[in-house]
């Protein structure tokens, strides 16, 4: 009984520490500099080298549960693209994320005074990403005869002469699902377009091998990657602030691991003696 009580107290104490480590840094000024990793820099450089008017395809696949980590990436990349006067072709291949992605596209477009249909197009959602990715490789109109707002794709000025992946400069999939694998296997593997991925921090280590093989030309990993991109475009946002919170929380977790191991070693030594 005493053990259970101690465990409950210990758990509550840990929860309280985590709560404080998230809350307190939110009210502090975050440091503005993050070390930029080569895998993020290469995405920035590639987009930066594009000519005005070229099309960047943003394949966003995440829902509100992942928004804290993924949305800063989308917003930072959109800001960079609009600053360079690039055009955006977006899809949202997760059912729960369609409206979220639409709101982010609208928000950044309004910030830069971009016009729907001319500067950006949102194709929306169709089920089964693997099939949709393959179908878009033949013609965007196959899975999406109409855009998200039910306007025929052929009536959108930006889509004139834009048939498939061959007509976009690069594809960046901002993805918190297994969809990245589909993009690599069914998209890049078959249609050979330049592909980069933005994934959650937990997922990112899975994709380093594709980076080295050249199947991905860049990788933005987690909130850290988003903060790096915000630094590259010189516009600190929620990722830069979030990174500070994450820094402190990581320290607390590492501290907890060390304390836990200290107690474990002490217990072993006591048992032996």
């Amino acid at each position, binding site marked *: 009984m005493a053990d259970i009580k101690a465990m409950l107290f210990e758990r509550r104490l840990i929860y309280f520490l985590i*709560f404080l480590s998230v809350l307190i840094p939110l009210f502090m000024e975050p440091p503005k500099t993050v070390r930029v990793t080569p895998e993020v820099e290469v995405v920035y450089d590639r987009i930066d080298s594009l000519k005005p008017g070229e099309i960047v395809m943003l394949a966003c696949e995440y829902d509100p549960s992942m928004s804290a980590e993924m949305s800063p990436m989308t917003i930072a990349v959109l800001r960079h693209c609009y600053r360079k006067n690039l055009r955006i072709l977006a899809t949202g291949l997760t059912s729960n994320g369609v409206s979220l992605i639409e709101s982010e596209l609208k928000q950044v477009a309004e910030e830069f005074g971009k016009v729907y249909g001319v500067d950006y197009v949102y194709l929306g959602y169709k089920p089964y990403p693997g099939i949709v990715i393959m179908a878009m490789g033949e013609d965007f109109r196959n899975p999406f005869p109409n855009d998200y707002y039910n306007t025929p794709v052929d009536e959108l000025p930006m889509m004139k002469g834009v048939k498939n992946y061959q007509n976009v400069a690069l594809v960046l999939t901002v993805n918190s699902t297994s969809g990245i694998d589909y993009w690599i296997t069914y998209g890049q593997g078959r249609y050979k377009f330049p592909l980069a991925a933005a994934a959650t*921090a937990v997922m990112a280590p899975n994709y*380093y091998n594709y980076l080295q093989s050249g199947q991905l030309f860049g990788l933005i990993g987690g909130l850290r990657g988003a903060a790096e991109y915000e630094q590259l475009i010189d516009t600190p946002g929620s990722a830069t602030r979030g990174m500070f919170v994450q820094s402190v929380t990581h*320290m607390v977790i590492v501290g907890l691991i060390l304390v836990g191991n200290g107690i*474990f070693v002490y217990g072993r030594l006591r048992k032996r003696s």
Partner: protein
Amino acid sequence: MQRELPRIITLVTGLFLAIQYFIPHRYSEQFYETALDWLIIIGIFSIALGVASLVNHQRQKIKRREEGFRFSYVLLAGLLFMCLTGFITGSGTDSLFYRWGYVGILSPITSTMFALLAFYIASAAFRAFRARTVIATILLVSAVIVMMGRVPLGERLIPGIAHASDWLLNVPNMAAKRAIAIGLGLGGSATALKVVLGIEAPHLR
């Protein structure tokens, strides 16, 4: 014939799609596009099947008064509410579906559920991340290095930890992931071949 016909369809379609990949001809492309259209149509039917199965399962739970059956009412009400608001008001950012269903309910619920993970991870790390064996110690040290090396505060406190973290991700992690990926790829190809040749037929069970 009931079992033979699906096997023949699987064999012919599987072989055609595999060969088609290597034939850059107009007819081959047309065949591929038609196959993709079929896939999309079949996929859309399976959504209807999924919803029907979900409703039926929850209905059975309520009927049998199984443990937690009241949650089935919540699930069915949520499903009905989201479908109705979506169908009636549309799903654009100005719609009732978006303001009430999406921003008001779905976003906070899913975000809260995910945010709770931070607390569980911290508690689990304190309890389970123990240096009991050599392997466990290697895992523990690697995890601490990556955790510290991926945040700016860690980089500043411990010089060189960022490079150690990058090395762990780019060398041992990549080697392991590559081995897993190659294994999965070979396994997937073997299974696909078995299905196409009719040696295994999970779709007929």
